[in-house]
C-alpha cells in the first residue's frame, strides 16, 4: 500500500498524460460538458425523437390555438365537433411532445405517438367518407400523417433497440466504438485518505457495482474481474501507468485484453476545508461480437450514469464506511419501497478504511 509519505513514482512511458496513449485518436474534449459520454460513430434515435417531440408540441399548439385554420388546411369542416376533436388531439400532441423531450428514455412516448398516428389515420379515414370534406386536402393530410407515422416507427424502433442494451441499434456483432466517460465528485475526506483507499485496487469492488474482484499481483499489475450478464465474467490484466501519491493514478489494460480499457483518477484538494475533488476518466473499446454486446450491457446504456453511481458509492464508503441502501435500492430492478421478503443478502458491514480500531465509523 502506498502512503502519503512515499516519493512520487513514475513508470516507464508515463511522462505523457494518461490519455495520450491514443496518439491523438481521441477528439479534443476541452470546453465540452463533463457529463457526456462520447461514443464515436454512435447514431441513435434520440435526434429524430427530439425533432418529433418538437413537432408534436408545434402541432399541438396549432391545434389548440388555431383549430379553424388547421381544419381548413386538412380539408375537414370547421364545426364544433371537429374543433373539439382537434383540441383533444392537440392536447395529446402536447403531452407526448413534452414526454419525448423531458423523459430520459423517450421510447414509450414515441410509441405513444405511433398510437396517436393510428388514431389520426382512422379519423382522416372517417373524414374521407364524409360528404362535407375536401377530398384532395384530406388525401394530402393523410399522406403527411403516413409519412410522420413512418418516422415515428423508425424512431421508436431505434430507441427500443437502444434501451435493450444493443448499443447504437446496430446489428449484434458490429463494433460499438470507443466509449469515453468522465465524472466528478467531491468527497469530504483529505486527498491522502481518498488516494490511499483508491490506490489499493482491491477496494474498488466495494463501490464499483460491476466489478466482482480485483487482485493485486505485484506493484504495478492487477487482475480485474467484472460481472457480466447471465452469471459470466470478463477478466483482464491491468497495469498502472502513472502513480503520483495523493494526486493521480492512471491504469490501462495490458495488450492482450479482450476489452482494451484505460482509466485515471485525479485527486485535487477542494477549496477551503471542502475535502477532495475527484475526477475519474475511463475509456474502453468494446470488441465486436457477443463479447462486445456483453460489455455494452456491463457498462450499461448510460456509462456516465454507471460511473457517477460508482463515485457516489465511493463517497459513501469514504464518508460513512458503507454503501447506503434503501428498501427499493437493494433490488436490481424497480421494486416497491417496502421491506424485502428475502433475507438481506448483504448484512450490514463496516468497511475498511474509514473505520477506526474500535470499529467506530469516522
Amino acid at each position, binding site marked *: 500500500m502506498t502512503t502519503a509519505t512515499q516519493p512520487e513514482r513514475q513508470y516507464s512511458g508515463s511522462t505523457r498524460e494518461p490519455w495520450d496513449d491514443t496518439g491523438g485518436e481521441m477528439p479534443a474534449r476541452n470546453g465540452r460538458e463533463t457529463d457526456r459520454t462520447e461514443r464515436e460513430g454512435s447514431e441513435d434515435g434520440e435526434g429524430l425523437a427530439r425533432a418529433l417531440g418538437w413537432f408534436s408540441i408545434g402541432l399541438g399548439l396549432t391545434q389548440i390555438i388555431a383549430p379553424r385554420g388547421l381544419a381548413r388546411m386538412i380539408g375537414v369542416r370547421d364545426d364544433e365537433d371537429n374543433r373539439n376533436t382537434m383540441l383533444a388531439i392537440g392536447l395529446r400532441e*402536447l*403531452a407526448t411532445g413534452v414526454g419525448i423531450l423531458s423523459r430520459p428514455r423517450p421510447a414509450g412516448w414515441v410509441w405513444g405517438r405511433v398510437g396517436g398516428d393510428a388514431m389520426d389515420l382512422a379519423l382522416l379515414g372517417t373524414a374521407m367518407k364524409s360528404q362535407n370534406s375536401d377530398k384532395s386536402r384530406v388525401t394530402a393530410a393523410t399522406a403527411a400523417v403516413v409519412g410522420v407515422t413512418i418516422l415515428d416507427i423508425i424512431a421508436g424502433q431505434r430507441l427500443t433497440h437502444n434501451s435493450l442494451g444493443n448499443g447504437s441499434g446496430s446489428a449484434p456483432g458490429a463494433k460499438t466504438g470507443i466509449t469515453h466517460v468522465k465524472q466528478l465528485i467531491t468527497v469530504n475526506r483529505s486527498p491522502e485518505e481518498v488516494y490511499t483507499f483508491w490506490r489499493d485496487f482491491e477496494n474498488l469492488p466495494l463501490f464499483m457495482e460491476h466489478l466482482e474482484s480485483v487482485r493485486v499481483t505485484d506493484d504495478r499489475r492487477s487482475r480485474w474481474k467484472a460481472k457480466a450478464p447471465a452469471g459470466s465474467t470478463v477478466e483482464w490484466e491491468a497495469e498502472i501507468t502513472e502513480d503520483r501519491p495523493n494526486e493521480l493514478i492512471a491504469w490501462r489494460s495490458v495488450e492482450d485484453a479482450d476489452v482494451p480499457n484505460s482509466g485515471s483518477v485525479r485527486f485535487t484538494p477542494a477549496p477551503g476545508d471542502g475535502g477532495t475533488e475527484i475526477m475519474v476518466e475511463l475509456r474502453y473499446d468494446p470488441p465486436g461480437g457477443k463479447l462486445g454486446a456483453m460489455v455494452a450491457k456491463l457498462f450499461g446504456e448510460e456509462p456516465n*450514469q454507471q460511473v457517477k453511481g460508482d463515485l457516489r458509492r465511493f*463517497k459513501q464508503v469514504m464518508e460513512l464506511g458503507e454503501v447506503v441502501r434503501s428498501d*427499493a*435500492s437493494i433490488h436490481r430492478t424497480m421494486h*416497491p419501497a*417496502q421491506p424485502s421478503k428475502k*433475507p438481506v443478502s448483504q448484512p450490514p458491514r463496516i468497511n475498511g478504511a474509514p473505520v477506526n480500531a474500535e470499529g467506530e465509523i*469516522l
Partner: protein
Amino acid sequence: MKAACWMNKRDVRVEEVPDPKILNSRDAIIRVTSTAICGSDLHLYNGFIPTMEKGDILGHEFMGEVVETGPGLKNKLKVGDRVVVPFPIACGNCTMCQRDLFSCCENSNPNAYIAEKLFGHSPAGLFGYSHMLGGYAGGQAEYARVPFADIGPLKVPDGMTDEQVLFLSDILPTGYMGAEMCNIKRGDIVAVWGAGPVGQFAIASAYLLGAEKVIAIDRFPYRLRMAKEGAGAAETINYEEVSVQEALKEMTGGRGPDACIDAVGMEAHGHGPVYAYDRVKQAMMLESDRPIALREAILACRSGGTVSVIGVYGGLIDKFPMGAIVNRSLTLRSGQTHVHRYMRPLLEHIQRGDIDPTFIITHRLQLDDASEGYSMFSNKQDECMKVVLKT
C-alpha cells in the same frame, strides 16, 4: 406487518408487507406508535409527484419505540428508547450535513441519479416519498427502518405524550423554518398563504419570532377560525370572499406585508382564467406545479421584503413574476426543512408551554383506516385539519 401502501392515484390501501430489516450499520428499527398524514402526502395521493411505484409504503411523520439497532449505533440509541423521527434522511458526515443543511444530505439518496435529472443535483432521501427521493419505505406502518438513527431521531422526554411531540418530525419545524427565513424584525407584518397544519405552525412561529401581526389566507372558514383561535392570527382573509391584494393593502397601510409565507405549494387552488390556465397546463404536463399562491405572495410583498416558500413544489412552474422580485428587491427563500436543526429547540418551546402543537389534531384513526384518512383529508371533509394514525 401492516402498512399504508400507495397503490395508484387516489388509492391508498393498508396491506400486509414484510417486516423491515437492518440494512446499514447505523439503522434502527422502530415500532411505530403514532404517525400522521401530511399535506405533502396528498401530493403523492393525488399523483403529482413522479416516480411512485405500486406498493410504496407512505408516511414521513412518525414516532415510536426502538426495537432493534444496527452495530454502528453504539450506545447512541438503545432498544426501548422512545423517539420521534425527522422526515429527511441525513448522514451527518457529508459537507451539507456539517453545514446543518440536513435536507440536502449528499449521501442519503440511493436514487440520486433520478433526482439529479429533475433538480440538477440530488437532495436528501425522504421517508415514503417516491423513488426519486430514495425509495425508502415510509412510517405509516407498524414498524419502520430508520437509517442514520444516531443523527436523526430525537429521544422523547418522559411524561410527554405522542401527540405533543409527533409534529417535531415535520410540520412544526417546517412552519418554524418558514417563519425563520422571513428574518422577522420588531413591527413586522407577516402574511401566510394556506391555513393548513404547516400554515398554522408558521403563524404561531412568526409570533414566537417577534412578528407584530400575522394574517392568514385560506378559503375554508374552519381553517381560518383555527388560525385565529389556535395559532393566534390577528386577521384572516377568505380569498373566495375578498381580493387578497386589496385586503392586504388595507391591513398594511398600502405597503404590503413585510414577509409572505407560501404554505400552499404545487396544488394551489384559485379562481378565474389564470387558475384554469394552470390546471390545463398541469394536466398536460406542461408545468408540474400550480404556483397560484406563490405568484400572489410575490406581488403582495412590500418592496425589499421576503417571500418564504415552504409549500412543496416538485418541478416547473409557469408565469413566474421575476420582474417583481428584481425590480422591488424581494428576497426569495426556500428549502425542504432541515428538521434536525429545529427538533431540540422546538421541543424546549413545547416543554416551556410557548406552543402546544396538539391544537391542529382533528381526527384520530387507527392505521387500518389510513385509506379513509387520506380521502377525508384530501377532500377537506368533516373540517379535517390533521389526521393522526395510531397503531
